[in-house]
Every structure is written in C-alpha cells, then in structure tokens.
C-alpha cells in the first residue's frame, strides 16, 4: 500500500494552489459579497484544463485521475468554496454522465465543448423531490422524433451560466424509479427557460436557479442512456459528485484551519499570543486530526472510484465526514477569532456560511447515512 501522491498529483496540487492564491483568493470576499459569478476565473480554469480534466484526451480532457481531481477542487475551495463547487458540479455531474452513458455521437458533440468553453449543469432536484429524488414530477412525453419536457427543477448549480444540462424526467410514471430517464438539454432550446435566481446563505458567487420546461421539445437523440436508466445514471453521477463535494468541504476546512493557525499566533491577549493557551492548542489539534481523517476518506473514495469498483458507501462516508468536519472546523476557527471572526473583514464568517451547504447538497448528511447504513445492512 502506497499512501503517497504520485508526482503528477503533487504538481497538480502545487499548480492549483498557486492558481488559487493568485486568481481565486484575492476576489473571494468580493464575489461573495456581490453574488458575482467568477466568469473570468472559470475561463482560466478552462484554459489550464481543470474544467473536464478527467475526460479522455480525445474529447479535450487531460485524462486526469480521480485523486488529482479531488486535489484540484480541494485547493480551489481552500480559497473560495463557490469556485470549487462550480468545478465540482461541471465535472462530476455533467461531464461524467455524458462520458459514461453517452453515445459516441453525443460525446463527440458535447464533450469537446465541456472541455473548452461551455459550463455544464445537472437537474435532478424538484420542489417536491429532494431527498426523495424518485418522486420526479417533470415528465418527458415521446412525440415523433422528440421528447417533450414539462416541469421544473430547483436549486440547480451553474444554471444561470451553463450551456449544457443533464436533466431527469419521468418517461413512464407507472414504473417508479425505473420510469425515470436522462436527457441532454441545451440552453436556448424552445420551451426551456430559467426561473428564480436563489439568494443563498453561502457559496453566493455560484449561480443557483430554477429551470422551467414548458412543452420543451428536445430531439430523441438527446436521450442519455436508455429510457428508464435515468435514476441509475443520477445515482452513479452522485457517487462521483460526493467525492467532489467531499473535496470541496475538505478545502473549506483546510482554508479555515490555515486562517485560525495564523490568527492565533499573532493575536495577543493577557500578554501572550493566544496560540500559547491550551484551549487554543487542543482545538487546533482536534481540527487538524479531523481534517487529516477527512482527507484520507476523500482520497480513499476517489481511489476506489478510479479502480471502477462500487464506491457508493465510500463516497457517502467521505462526503458525510468531510462536510461535518468543514462545519465543525469553520465554527471552531471562527470562535478562535472571537469578534473578528464574526465580521466581514475576515474570511471566517464566509467560510462558515459556505461550509453549511456541503451538509445539504448532493445528498444531505441524512441521505449519506441512509446510503451507508443500507450498504452495511444489505
């Protein structure tokens, strides 16, 4: 067993950390404050090949491994969780299912765009289908050479900026989850529009909107996989998504921890830096221990995914532990900052707000516990 990164993974960490420090950190507070999508940053991420990095070379990707991908999301999220989340949604939830389940024609049409300029998104969640994702109310009706979509999706990451969407809809209600199908929908297709843009507590720079389908006719050729395979496609994409969100949570925790270490070394109270006091030291020790544990769970799940073996449980455990670690570490790190942690001159309150979403999206912590326990008791 080699618990060591490859040379390429190490260099990818160096490069993405450098990118993050120079391109992402300087604007993180501002884009949070103004809810501005970091389009220029994303253009640069396309240029260096982070967007779609896991896709094979023939489609413009780098053929990167899953651990390298987790490292890239971690390093971006260390400075700005919104930026890390944009990358995670694009890669795990849009690029991957099209690569895994698409026909050669679909892959040749969409993947080169997703590695060069077009942002991707994934639409599963509905107003009445959250944790119970099987309760899809969006329907897709066969009509000649088209499918006609009607319904709506909510809380869709990247929605306002994406050009390519993987959308789930019921093709046969009588079959339950086996009646759900997946489709590739392009921005601008008639009958497809954006609804409300959400104002969020955290990851405020990412674009989160409602998607509305009103008699939206899409070509039959845009069915992804077979009819009825949609739920399986969604669940397998979410396995990868959870590795991505685990990495995002890990990055948030590490970023908050770095701030806490620096702050407690220079903040003087009672004549000494507060890092001198045992309360601070023990808190830092616990934070670091949990962060390392989260890191091994995330990289372990990424490794398992890379081998192609089933990894739903590992991905769920990584996401569950990393997101709860992010929440705990940001809360403690803010506490160590005292009043300064609570004001916007310091990044702590942003990091704490950002951490919360990782316990909710791509399956709440409760869903992760359902997945893990179902695997144990199967």
């Amino acid at each position: 067993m080699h618990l060591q990164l490859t040379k390429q993974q190490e260099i990818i960490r160096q490069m993405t950390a450098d990118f993050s420090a120079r391109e992402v950190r300087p604007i993180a507070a501002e884009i949070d404050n103004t809810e501005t999508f970091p389009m220029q940053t994303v253009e640069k991420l396309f240029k260096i090949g982070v967007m779609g990095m896991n896709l094979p070379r023939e489609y413009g990707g780098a053929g990167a491994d899953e651990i390298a991908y987790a490292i890239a999301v971690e390093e971006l999220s260390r400075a700005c969780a919104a930026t890390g989340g944009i990358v995670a949604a694009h890669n795990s939830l849009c690029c991957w299912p099209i690569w895994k389940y698409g026909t050669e024609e679909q892959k040749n049409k969409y993947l080169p765009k997703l590695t060069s300029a077009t942002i991707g998104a994934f639409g599963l969640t509905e107003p009445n289908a959250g944790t119970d994702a099987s309760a899809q109310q969006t329907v897709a009706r066969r009509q000649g050479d088209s499918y006609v979509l009607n319904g709506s999706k909510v809380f869709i990451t990247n929605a306002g900026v994406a050009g390519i969407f993987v959308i789930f809809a019921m093709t046969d209600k009588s079959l339950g989850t086996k009646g759900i199908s997946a489709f590739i929908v392009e921005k601008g297709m008639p009958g497809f529009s954006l609804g409300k843009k959400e104002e969020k507590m955290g990851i405020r720079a990412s674009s989160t909107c409602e998607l509305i389908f009103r008699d939206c006719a899409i070509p039959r050729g845009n069915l992804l996989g077979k009819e009825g395979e949609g739920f399986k496609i969604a669940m397998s994409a979410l396995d990868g998504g959870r590795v991505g969100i685990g990495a995002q949570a890990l990055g948030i925790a590490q970023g908050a921890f770095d701030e806490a270490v620096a702050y407690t070394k220079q903040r003087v109270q009672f004549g000494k830096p507060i890092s001198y006091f045992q309360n601070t030291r023990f808190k830092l020790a616990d934070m670091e221990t949990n962060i390392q544990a989260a890191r091994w769970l995330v990289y372990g799940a990424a490794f398992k995914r890379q081998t192609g073996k089933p990894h739903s449980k590992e991905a769920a455990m990584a996401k569950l532990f990393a997101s709860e670690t992010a929440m705990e570490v940001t809360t403690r790190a803010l506490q160590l900052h005292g009043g300064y942690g609570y004001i916007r001159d310091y990044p702590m309150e942003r990091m704490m707000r950002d951490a919360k979403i990782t316990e909710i999206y791509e399956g709440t912590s409760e869903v992760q516990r359902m997945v893990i326990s179902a695997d144990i008791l199967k």
Partner: protein
Amino acid sequence: MRIIVCVKQVPDTNEVKIDPETGTMIRAGVPSILNPDDKNALEQALLLKDEAGAHVTVLTMGPPQAAETLKECLAMGADDAVLLSDRAFAGSDTWATSNALAAAVRKLGGFDLILTGRQAIDGDTAQVGPQLAERLDIAQITYAQSLEIDADTVRCQRLLEDGYEIVETKTPALITAIKELNRPRYMSIRGIYDAFGENANIKVWGVADLGIDASQVGLKASPTSVNRSFSPPPKPKGKKMLDGTVDEMAGALAAELKRLHVI
C-alpha cells in the same frame, strides 16, 4: 519558427537565508524554482507559438535535478527540452556556462530566436544571455519589455532607468526578458501528466555530446573568482521624520535641502 529558451533552476530566494559566519547561502531545504525572468522568456516563446506556430526548445545547464524545471517548462507548453548535465560542468561561471550553452545551441542546429531571462535571482549577473549572443555572433536586445515579430524583423521596447528605447534587429537574435514583458501562464493539467510522466521529452547531454573539450567548461575554465560574499549592512534609518501639515513639512524639507546645499 524555431525558438530556443534558456532557463535556469534557482533556489527560491524568498526562502533563502545567508549563513552569517561564512556569508554563503544556506541551500538545504530551500525549494528550487524556475528563474522568474526565464519564465517570462518562456511565456513569450509560447505566445509566439500560439499566434503563429513555433517549435519551442528549452535548454538548461545544471545538476540532474534541474530536469524538474524543464518538466515545468514542458507542462507550460514547450515542445522539447535539453539538459546539459555532466560533472565536467560543475563550478562553471558565466563564461564557461555560455560556452557550453553556445555549443548546445549549435548542436540543436538552426533557430530564429533565443529567449532568456535578463538575469537569474541567485547570481544576478545578467551576463549569460549577452555572452551567448556574442559567442554565436548574433544580435541581442536586452531588458525587453515588449516584443513584436514581423517576418525576419524583431522589434522590442528595451527598458531603461528613465524610459525605454525601441530597438529593431533581424533574426536570428537573442532577446533577454524582464518581468514587464508578459504574465506567465500556469502549467496545464494535461501538460503536467505528460511532462511529469515516464516519457517526458528531455534529452540529457554531457561534454562529449557537445563536441567541446572538457577544459573549456567547469571551474578551471572559469575566470571569475569569488573573494567573499556577504550580506550588505541594512540601510540606516533616516535622520528624522517630518511631521505637521503638508505646508509645514514641505517648508521643513526645503530648509533642510538648502542647509545641505542641495538646492
């Protein structure tokens, strides 16, 4: 177009400490980086490649671990790389280094441009670029803050202390870059996989490959001798700080300058 970019692996001088006893650099544990001005030179070569197509070869001389720096250059987009590495090169000063580099450039055969950084942050001599141009008997433009190419003419703004001059020459030519020239790109993910993989496109040449005599390189072929190196004493603090309103401070400053017969 064929471009050769000469680079150097240097200790990150932001991290370097000087041994107060011996006056020499403590290199242990200091990360090595691609010399910053050389990175600008490489970026310029890659910009020319993006615009009009070019074959970009990176050349360095150094110990085997300098291959890491060449890999970084490949991951940024260079086509191939040559490492001059041989015990015979050890201890080379700028004179001996430019001799080895010139031999390597001749061996590479034909080029339109050689780009390199103004100077390396470890030695700060700014000599190797100009010496290389002299040895190859080609034109050189140093301190380039801009570069345009039009057929076989290269035109640069050459930064001076009090402005810049526009210098034009015919290719082949050697240009030394300063940080104002451009903003270097990042390595790409794809480039990292290729350059840091097992089949990185790096040739390693020793003295024998260059067809030069071992007596022309290395410590013995180096006329430079370092008598002593030391940290310059810190600049003393100013005599006094002015205070008061702007008018009062300006008045006090003018009076002081008059007293010193400066004005």
